[in-house]
């Protein structure tokens, strides 16, 4: 299976990268652009077919390594 993990800065944590992107989009002439947030996308290949087990394993990976709970939230998507 494949796990797709989205890691985002929590609300209230300043995201200078997102702000810089939003600034340069405006600079490039894109209109109607609201806020921009930048996060991480991590794809992990897993040698298992059991979705539930996979989800638990990936959640543990996020808690132990992939996200920093002081500043980040994450979400997990699994696909075959």
């Amino acid at each position: 299976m494949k796990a797709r993990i989205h890691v985002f800065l929590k609300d209230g944590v300043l995201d200078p990268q997102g702000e810089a992107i939003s600034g340069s989009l405006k600079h490039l002439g894109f209109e109607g652009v609201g806020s921009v947030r930048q996060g991480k996308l991590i794809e992990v290949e897993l040698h298992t077919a059991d979705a539930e087990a996979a989800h638990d394993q990936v959640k543990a990976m996020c808690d132990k390594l992939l996200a920093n709970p002081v500043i980040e939230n994450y979400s997990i998507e699994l696909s075959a």
Partner: protein
Amino acid sequence: MKTAVIVFPGSNCDRDAAMALEAVTGKAPLMVWHGDSQLPDGLDFIMVPGGFSYGDYLRSGAVASRSPVMQDLVKKAEAGVPVLGVCNGFQILTEAGLLPGALMRNAGLRFVCEPAPLTIENHNSAFTHAYGDRKDVVFPIAHHDGNFFADQATLDRIEGEGQVILRYRKNPNGSMRDIAGVSNEKGNVLGMMPHPERAIDAHHGGTDGLALFESILGGLK
């Protein structure tokens, strides 16, 4: 006295740290490889040096903070052994949960290397008492991820407890409340982005870093 410097793959201030410790104690520190699962017994001081452990991949300090030697370091720190983390070392100590907050990408999004004017906020700490009542020091900074973040409650708490040890006089990276260095509650663990080990010799352009090492190491003799 027995001191140690932890070396991770990608550490690059380990030699500078060793030189500083040797200059102050007269004795070379032990260099401990990250893969070792135990630190030597009887250590009086542990330094986690700067650099780019694991290439700063994922988050600076994240991968290093999960390495075998860190488990033991956390235990020793909790038992009261003084620990200093500089730059990447600071990032590693926060990732390991020994220090509050997190270090994020600089607000200007660029790496910044410059001599940073700092104010010593707490003159009674184990790491600063040798400065006497001197407030202003200059240490070089050189980092990409030095933007200190913590939520307001945490910030208020660490301010109240005297855990904010150093503040920037001219904020170079967006750190909240200009924080450049914080300690744990007990005061035996200090993390700081500026490099005191790059300010111990006249050829560095200043020797303001000496008293920091003298504070912590002199107190141990």
